[in-house]
């Protein structure tokens, strides 16, 4: 991205006087609109890669199950459309409205998560975290992550002066808010989502400024909790064993099937990939190729450039979030941006780590990329929140609305182009 900006910047006549490309890029990165566009660009790129790769990875299974290779893709495309619309709408939601929606959001999230255990709920692959409404399935825990971020940001922003006192830090964000949601998710046996929510809650407390000594205590508790939950399930223990032990010499070793086939996919892809659409492992070999293991298929078809690009895009998203946190004077914005960042990055780390064998297989989708309607819509809503926060940065909103044409607004992303060109 940097090189591209550099080339664009230097190729146009600039006023004030010409600078070197690197300096121009640096200047643009410091501009108040940079976080907004970085979020927009990285999220758009991830969603685009996701759609293309969902189509490729799901085509075989889709064809077998429905007779059309496009079945999963078309659904995903529809969800992406809904998600983008929601993200666009939410990005224009003023900060004050976000705060107002915090409590109702949490209540709705808790209600939906509780509904999983009602007759509306259902199981999928051993996890009870789905509800079925009007013929569509919905995974409320995905939306609960967003609710948790907004609720946490609202509460912790108000308590920023008393955050050093643990009771204030925990009530009402953790108790009852986060605990209720996480408890319901754990009750549904969705450990992966629960871990993300623990990360969001803990991360937001960390960012809010909770003294580090508490993290030592909580860290031990969390580690103990995870250990307890893992030991309680043979399935989870096996996943951990295959991760730590060097036992997976072939896909036929018990519990190694998915891990080894993910390695196969990445190895097949090699440096430059087999080419778009040419994955072998998606042919009923690697389980969940369009879902939790989509990165393996990306690596297989697009090679190392493909898989590293995904890493880079998440890094850009992380950097943009950090910029929002760093540039904003508003505690809510700071916490909300940090919350979304922790959400996206922790989920990406868990997912990618699972796929490349550096973490046990947890079973969380890759945000914005993996197939799955609820996850995509929720993640796009999270991006909407992030964009809204970016717009609230001092000078950003003015810079964006100060330009009448969308073209100019886009060009504003490139230093010198907006003014100099016209």
């Amino acid at each position: 991205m940097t090189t591209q900006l550099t080339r664009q910047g230097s190729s146009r006549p600039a006023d004030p006087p010409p600078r070197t490309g690197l300096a121009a890029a640096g200047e643009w990165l410091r501009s108040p609109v940079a976080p907004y566009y970085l979020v927009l660009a990285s999220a758009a790129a991830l969603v685009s890669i996701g759609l293309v790769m969902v189509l490729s990875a799901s085509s075989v299974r889709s064809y077998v199950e429905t007779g059309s290779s496009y079945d999963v893709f078309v659904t995903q495309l529809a969800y992406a459309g809904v998600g983008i619309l929601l993200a666009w709408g939410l990005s224009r939601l003023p900060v004050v409205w976000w705060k107002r929606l915090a409590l109702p959001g949490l209540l709705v999230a808790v209600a939906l998560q509780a509904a999983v255990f009602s007759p509306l709920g259902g199981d999928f692959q051993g996890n009870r975290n789905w509800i079925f409404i009007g013929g569509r399935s919905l995974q409320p825990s995905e939306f609960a992550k967003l609710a948790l971020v907004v609720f946490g940001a609202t509460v912790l922003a108000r308590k920023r002066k008393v955050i050093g006192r643990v009771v204030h830090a925990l009530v009402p964000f953790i108790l009852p808010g986060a605990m209720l949601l996480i408890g319901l998710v754990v009750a549904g046996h969705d450990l992966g989502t629960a871990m993300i929510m623990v990360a969001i809650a803990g991360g937001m407390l960390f960012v809010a400024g909770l003294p580090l000594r508490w993290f030592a205590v909580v860290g031990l508790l969390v580690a103990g909790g995870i250990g307890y939950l893992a030991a309680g399930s043979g399935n989870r223990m096996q996943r951990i064993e295959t991760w730590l032990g060097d036992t997976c010499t072939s896909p036929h070793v018990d519990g190694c099937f998915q891990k080894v086939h993910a390695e196969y996919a990445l190895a097949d892809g090699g440096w430059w990939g087999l080419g778009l659409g040419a994955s072998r492992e998606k042919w009923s070999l690697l389980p969940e190729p369009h879902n939790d293991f989509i990165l393996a298929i990306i690596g297989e078809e697009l090679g190392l450039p493909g898989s590293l690009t995904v890493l880079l895009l998440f890094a850009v998203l992380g950097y943009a979030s950090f910029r929002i946190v760093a540039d904003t004077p508003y505690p809510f914005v700071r916490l909300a941006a940090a919350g979304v960042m922790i959400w996206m990055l922790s989920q990406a780390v868990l997912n990618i780590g699972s796929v490349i064998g550096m973490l046990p297989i947890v079973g969380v989708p890759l945000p914005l990329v993996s197939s799955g309607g609820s996850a995509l819509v929720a993640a796009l809503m999270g991006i909407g929140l992030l964009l809204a926060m970016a717009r609230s940065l001092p000078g950003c909103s003015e810079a964006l609305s100060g330009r009448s044409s969308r073209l100019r607004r886009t060009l504003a992303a490139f230093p010198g182009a907006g003014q100099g060109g016209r």
Partner: protein
Amino acid sequence: MARRQSSTAAHHGVAHPQRRVRMLLLGTMIVFSLFAAQLVRLQGLDAATVSAAAIDERLKQVIIPATRGAITDVNGEPLAVDVDRVHIAVDPVNVAAYERWEDGELVGSGFSGAAQAVAEVTGEDPERLERVISTTEGRWAYLVKDVSPEVWQQVKDLGIPGVTPEEFHHRLYPLGESHAKLLGWLGAGEAPAGGVELTRHDWLTGTPGERTFEIGGNGEVITTGTAVDTPAVDGGDVRLSIDSDLQWYAYDALEKRVEEAKALSGYVLVQEVETGRIVTAATYPGFDPSDPEQTSEGMRNDVVEDVYEPGSTAKLVTAAAALEEGIVERDTPIVVPYRLPRGGKTFKDAHDPRTPWQTFGGVLATSSNMGTILYGEKLEDQQLHDWLRRFGLGTPSGLGLPGESGGVVPPVETWSRTSRYTLMFGQGLSSNALQQMSVYQTMANDGVRIPPTVVEGTTDDQGRYTAAPVPEGERVVSAETSQTLTEILEQVPTFFGTAPTAAVEGYHVAGKTSTADRYDDELGRYSRTTASFIGYAPSDDPKYVVAVTIQRPTEISQYGGTISGPVFADVMRYALQKAGVAPADEPLPELELTYDPKAQAPGHPRGVTLGDIAFSDERADG
């Protein structure tokens, strides 16, 4: 970058959110760096070996069976052909997922649904099929064996998961028993048993191909994967010189005669005189090649594997030798006695001669053992032995059918006192039917022997036909000798001759009967006879030699003329008419086979009679 805000946070006495977010970001970047390094390892550094293992898991190799070449008759009529067949195999684990929908309704599923669907197409019993699927332990069993590719296509169209084809070739013998022993047999295994299938196995067998491709988790072919096809090279075809019509006709005639005579077995050979090509080699009883199992005893090709004492048909060798050695001429007078003591044994003929005054021709035509000994004993032992060998007796014919036995012409050193006499009329040596026929082919072909062959030509997998060369002939006797002998043999199968049953109306036929004492291996002694007739026609320009041999007839008669003559006549007539050979338009020239002993001997001083110069048993008196 964080510097602008850091002061604000510090006022509240808590940690700076920017700094903590920066810590988080930094931590994430470190993790991402590790991930990137791991990706470089997996996709770059270690990729080759892991990818090789991955491909190993996916690669599947399937043998493409090569089609075995066809065996046809001389007109291209198929005698042995490969047909594509399919065994349908089943994997019960996958079948469980089967669902059958009709008009949006689930009408069958799982084992019973699949069994029902397959049964409808194949006509099998659905209950049996369901039992096969449900009782199979493991993931593989034959569901339906041996169906046509068309039926398999219908089964495939049902879309039942876990039902797979196993293609194979089935050898079909359209003409069944009549050609069975000649062709040999190819059962379920690939190893041929007997006949042309065995001797031409290398040519008929193709090279199987191999298809290598990558398969997905459900066994589907990965369309973007590696795919290497080594096509099968089909085997070549073999065209025999056999005329299947004639062989079928001969087999039919033979079968009737063997059954009528309650004989053990029989064979009919037809050879083309000028080329030595075998046009018919029928053996009764044959075997049914469509039976899935055969015994080696049942597949034995008696026509080349049986050796037996030829009997009178071998007198032709003695006669030819005597003519060639200048011992006799056609009309040499011979006095045939009733009894002839030689080598400590007294020989006699099956029928006492009507008259003792027989010419050399008469002796041969009436098949007199006495007469044959009287002129034959003028031959040295070694001469007799060598002449037998010169006609190919005691040497495999080279026809190229498996298991041919060359028979035995005993060397002179091993002869007993009577050997030289019995050998003259075809006892005490052994040969197969082919060798004996070859003697007559030599006579029919003006004294030039052509080794018998049965392969007309071959067609390779590209469709290029190569004719098999006709072996070079070898002159055994002079044209004059063969002409003389033919004149004599013409007198045998006539309506007035000694074997009227072998006469073929409208044609002049030269031939010879034989009724040989048969050595019965089971009894371990001589018992009953081998009844045969060998002849060629039309005698002025012979087209075919036909040899009919029937072993151990027990009813009607035991004589060659009576038992085998009619079959000979039947087959020869059919062969000549099929070949469009014109019937003779002149009557057979008469040949005097007896003489008046008081008549003046030509070329001798006046008063010397034929009786005076005749070969007679001088030693009988003294």
